[in-house]
């Protein structure tokens, strides 16, 4: 016979509660994967997949790192490389390195205003595009043109505020649900 427990314990983890928690944890990665898939639909602007992927990973790494762990980023990067014709692994490496760098300065970034975060995003996007360009060149053994990278960079920087607005709404809703 077990001794009776004093005080109130947490309510037992019911199935619904468990599912709710799992879904909330998986929401950022699933939304990012969904965005990548949707971005592949042709609208006349090539390179949209990567332009959508980086803001999403950047945002969740800053504001909800527990929901964007490295394995999820690995999967997202792999999906991105497989959907596009990019050399396999290049997108994975770029996203993981961005995650690593952002995690180091996360405590600073999370308190900053939107404009500063956008500025940091722009810098990260430039570094990421340069790294992706170099990796593509190295792995294909052929110097890739720089104009598509510029295009993608522009789209990605322009998309960030829009995506961040939507994602911060989602983030706040999740915080309310957890409170």
């Amino acid at each position, binding site marked *: 016979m077990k001794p009776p427990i004093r005080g109130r314990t947490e309510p037992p983890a019911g199935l619904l509660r468990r599912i709710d928690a799992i879904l909330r944890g998986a929401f950022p990665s699933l939304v990012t994967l969904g965005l990548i898939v949707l971005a592949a639909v*042709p609208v006349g602007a090539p390179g949209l997949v990567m332009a959508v992927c980086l803001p999403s990973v950047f945002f969740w790494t800053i504001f909800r790192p527990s929901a964007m762990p490295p394995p999820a980023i690995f999967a997202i990067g792999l999906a991105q490389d497989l959907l596009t*014709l990019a050399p396999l*692994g290049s997108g994975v490496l770029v996203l993981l*390195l961005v995650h690593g760098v952002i995690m180091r300065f996360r405590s600073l970034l999370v308190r900053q205003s939107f404009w500063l975060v956008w500025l940091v995003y722009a810098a990260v996007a430039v570094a990421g595009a340069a790294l992706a360009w170099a990796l593509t060149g190295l792995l294909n053994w052929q110097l890739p043109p720089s104009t598509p990278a510029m295009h993608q960079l522009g789209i990605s920087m322009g998309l960030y505020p829009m995506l961040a607005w939507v994602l911060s709404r989602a983030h706040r809703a999740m915080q309310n649900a957890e409170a």
Partner: protein
Amino acid sequence: MLRLSIPLRQALARLSLPMLIAAAFGVMLLGKADTLLVERARMVLADALMPVWSVVQEPVGAVNNAVREAEALWNIRAENARLREENDRLHRWQATALALESENALLRRQLAWVPDPAPNFFTARVVADGGGTYARAVLLATAVAMPARKGQVALDERGFVGRVTEVGSRSARVLLATDINSRIPITLENSRARAIMVGNNAVRPRLQHWPEGQAPREGDRVVTSAEAGAFPSGLPVGVVRWSDSGAPEVELFARLDRLDVVRLFDFGLTGILPPESVARPEPRGRR
């Protein structure tokens, strides 16, 4: 659920990033070492996502069409003037074409000419951009009844688009003529000079390797050449334009920025494909 002690879990969390970065390098090596595996993984993923894209593409296509309609309405006056001028010009050409057609028929009768068989083709919808930043490709939704095959030639309603490079069970990837890895043997129609059209990820691919003294001239029509047995000769490709920097480029007839539907022609040519991919059985037991 796996239960781990807290320090162990923390250590694992701290180690996971470096380990995954190492794994990313491993994936890069794997991608270089086994291109066939990567290709298959790409097509499995594309096949799996094809239903999603097919559904999403409908409203996106509708919006695109609406935007185009609005643009057309906006430009209706200028467009009308252009069309009238073009119509006059084409009327003159029609007379010439009819005269040439009858002359051609007469000559063929005299020569007992055996005409080329009409090639088989089927039409497939473009559902996704399959290229990314440094590649130009599109993904097509192919039905089971459509025998998509590597090496098939894709044309839109105006001209040459690209070649099928990867085939899945319900999707196919077409490498566009503008892709940096695209090399198309072409003929300049006026001089019959051969050249190679090299993609550079920009809108207009460049011309290279034309014969000495037969430089492509502005406005020359460019058609495919049967060199290397990859394409039939005479498919319309584009028109030569000299760029500001002094390089001959091809303005493609096909509108690659607004591809909705392409025709896949099977000319039965296997020139550029490596021998093992021709000998390999077709995927999922088709054909």
